[in-house]
């Protein structure tokens, strides 16, 4: 009876008022042949306490991960989160609220969304930002939908191969029957997108060009040039960006992006095993009426006082149905709130420091790993994430296992997505990784190569 407030007496009274003698009477319209008989085949119920203990046991099965120094990134990053962020999203006023359709009693959520839009606009330099989409990958899908609507008649989308592999997958699943032709253009031996190839492939069939920067290898792309090539061919330029990088790196607006999308998890959300994430979507002003998703706007109430409301809703599914700009309804509201609190807490200096320290430590780890015998296949400018290739001999002898045994999660193997990149790991460093852990990682690699590293895991 958990969470059900009714006593036997309540039930009796309610049934009497309805004019039936049992709940079963209320189900009589359901044809008998359709009824499920018996009890749902689930494990037996648990009390609240037992449920919590059971779930804590499952969480503990992942416990070894918590003791590790992790150098995993690839779209989800472990940045420092001010205490106010989680404590704000943990308030029922925010987490147990519905979508703010009734503006008069949803000003808290609506204003927070408005502030989120404003903050992301300042971060990216783009004038239009929506209230969030599911994640970076589906935000890119929406960008392509919007671009192909804007450039109808052109049905080809050119996509850099150096975008996150999961995004490539999500584009395929979402656009398989769209009638759009998705074509990839390669990266060169420096790991950055081959713009001369883009130039050859682009045509008056091309609706949009997609480039991610920093790209899948953490490398900064020549976004401005890519944007120019797109523009000259009459195509739109879509940049996939990393919000944390924008403390230091050229914004999508400065690069001339028409649409900018990105993964916003690093703004105030823990990794959460990959979800909830936060799809960031920003665009140039002229696309206002094509924007997908919700928009919070500032207006006034009947007394002329400042007020906020969901606006331009005629773009949306609940009004426009099949002609809506997107099918999205529920988005990632609470994650957007986290991002707003995060950016407002850190302020410009804190946000910049997170980026600077991450970059400082990434540069240091890259240097140390190189000295420890790792090869750095791509030397170009990067942001807080880079590729290292360990000697084949070390890998064969179980280097990665060895690092894990010593509680270092060394990075994401790239071979599944890029078969030509056997032995390569994508290594991310945030401000939360200590210099000590960075040195330990490199020392373990060096000692292992020297044959010294076969001992039992240290207790360090």
């Amino acid at each position, binding site marked *: 009876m958990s969470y059900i407030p009714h006593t036997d007496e309540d039930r009796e009274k309610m049934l009497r008022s309805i004019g039936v003698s049992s709940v079963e009477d209320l189900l009589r319209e359901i044809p008998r042949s359709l009824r499920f008989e018996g009890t749902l085949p689930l494990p037996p119920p648990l009390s609240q306490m037992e449920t919590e203990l059971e779930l804590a046991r499952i969480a503990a099965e992942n416990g070894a991960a918590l003791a590790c120094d992790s150098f995993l990134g690839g779209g989800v990053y472990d940045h420092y989160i001010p205490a106010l962020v989680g404590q*704000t999203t943990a308030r029922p006023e925010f987490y147990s609220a519905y979508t703010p359709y009734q503006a008069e009693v949803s000003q808290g959520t609506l204003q927070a969304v408005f502030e989120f839009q404003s903050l992301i606009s300042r971060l990216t330099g783009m004038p239009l930002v929506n209230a969030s989409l599911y994640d970076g990958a589906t935000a890119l899908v929406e960008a392509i939908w919007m671009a192909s609507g804007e450039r109808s008649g052109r049905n080809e989308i050119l996509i850099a191969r150096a975008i996150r592999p999961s995004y490539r997958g999500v584009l395929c699943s979402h656009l398989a029957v769209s009638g759009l032709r998705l074509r990839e253009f390669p990266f060169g031996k420096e790991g950055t997108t081959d713009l001369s190839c883009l130039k050859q492939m682009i045509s008056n069939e091309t609706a949009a060009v997609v480039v991610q920067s920093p790209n899948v290898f953490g490398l900064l792309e020549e976004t401005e040039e890519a944007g120019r090539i797109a523009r000259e061919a009459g195509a739109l330029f879509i940049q996939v960006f990393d919000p944390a990088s924008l403390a230091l790196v050229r914004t999508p607006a400065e690069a001339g992006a028409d649409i900018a999308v990105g993964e916003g998890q690093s703004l105030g959300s823990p990794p959460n095993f990959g979800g909830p994430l936060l799809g960031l979507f920003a665009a140039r002003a002229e696309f206002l009426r094509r924007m997908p998703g919700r928009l919070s706007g500032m207006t006034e109430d009947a007394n*002329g006082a400042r007020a906020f409301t969901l606006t331009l809703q005629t773009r949306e599914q609940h009004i426009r149905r099949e002609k809506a700009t997107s099918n999205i309804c529920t988005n990632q509201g609470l994650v957007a709130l986290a991002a707003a609190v995060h950016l407002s807490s850190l302020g410009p200096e804190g946000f910049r420091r997170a980026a600077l320290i991450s970059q400082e430590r990434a540069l240091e780890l890259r240097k140390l790993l190189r000295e420890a015998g790792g090869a750095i296949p791509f030397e170009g400018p990067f942001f807080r994430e880079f590729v290292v290739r360990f000697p084949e001999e070390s890998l064969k002898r179980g280097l990665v296992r060895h690092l894990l045994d010593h509680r270092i999660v060394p990075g994401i193997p790239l071979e599944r997505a890029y078969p030509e990149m056997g032995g390569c790991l994508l290594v991310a460093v945030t401000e939360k990784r200590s210099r000590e852990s960075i040195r330990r990682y490199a020392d373990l690699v060096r000692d292992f190569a020297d044959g010294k590293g076969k001992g039992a895991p240290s207790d360090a």
Partner: protein
Amino acid sequence: MLNPVIFELHKKGRAAEHLPAPETPEEEILASIPERMRRRLPLRLPEVPELELARHYERLARRNHHVEKDFYPLGSCTMKYNPRVHERIAALPGFAALHPMLPETLAQGAIRLLASLEEALAAVTGMDAFTLQPAAGAHGEFTGLSLVEAYFRKKGEDRRKVILPDSAHGTNPASVRRLGLEPVEVRSDERGEVSIDALGAVVDERTAALMLTLPNTLGLFETRLPRIVEIVHGAGAQLYLDGANLNALLGIVRPGDIGFDVMHTNVHKTFSTPHGGGGPGAGPVGVKEHLIPFLPTPRPVRDGDRWTWKHDFPDSIGPVHSYYGNFAVLVRAYAYIRHLGGPGLREVTEHAILGANYLRSLVEKSYPVPYRRAAMHEFVASAARFFQTANVRAMDIGKRLLDFGFYAPTISFPLIVKEALMIEPTETESRETIERFAAAMLAIAKEIEEDPERVRGAPYDTPVRRVNESLASRRPRLVWEDGADGEGVPSRG
């Protein structure tokens, strides 16, 4: 200023110091990024002292309605209580701090939990397998329809029509269109159910699926479902369930047993995960055997005594999410199912149905319910008579309810009821709350007769008065402009 936006609290140099300065001189770090690739645009984030920030969000919090404040009668949204214990569970570091790309050996509990939830959802719905990747209901619709499309493509059948009742939620036609298929509407009959004649006339060899909501958005069971199944399957098409209303079916009807081939469910409705002021939710998709090969990858599977991600499904549509879906939301849903078990879930549905019928019995004399049949977990009343007699719309009644401390019912759909008020109390609202709400509805009905103007001007007792939506769309102000405040918006206070 009564209600400043965050940028109005900004003064240079007063943000809290969260992080140390880097040890390396800044220029040295920046040297790794060529000049032309650096940010030139000033980074105009607000600098606000921590206490002022805390007060800012405290102010915003107080300006929100939420489940713990009072009842949300929102039909179709299933705004039930979000158990506190779930918040504590989802925040466990063994869940929250996990990176999705961890080696499987370090994430055994997480993969196992996802596989167990898939299994539990299959048990509850009678489907054969689930994917947890879709991030919300609409994303589930899109994914489920993609599976159907891939299935027919594999069979070499060209089927592009998806049929939807005129009572369907707006995401249904939008999802069909986004996927690149053709939505075709079928009308409801005088009982509020899919018209069998109309359905028979539109289903053909080009039909991919019928998308049905059950109970439908009027809160009614489709009593001729067996006939519908016959027609749809007879034409070789698939039957899709929009499972937004699964709260009415737990332990009573399993969609997978009665002819549905594919469905989504909104865990932020039926399985009690919070709505978060607009999300995140999750929209798992369940399928029968024949659609399993097309499910998104990777899939969590057991391999001997360990859990692993399996990528190799050649017919899969591929991933629909960056990773495995909204994991932290799914953890809460799993805790809910684990806690209630089969008997508890059935009680949920019984009481949801009891509550809806009770509330209807209290208000239907003043608010006619056009389809006078046993309601399931919600019912749709009409305010059309108030519109005719007093020019008071469903929206005005919703706004007046805000003054009583309640939220408004759903008024945007179903489109087939004029001035619809869709009302769903859920099983977690007590008899006293239901009665308090009914009393407010009746008081408003009386007020409409005596002083309709008062109702049209509502709300009065809310953080702001009726919000000017047309101004918002005529002069869109979607981001804060420093210095531009006051332009067209007289500032008060």
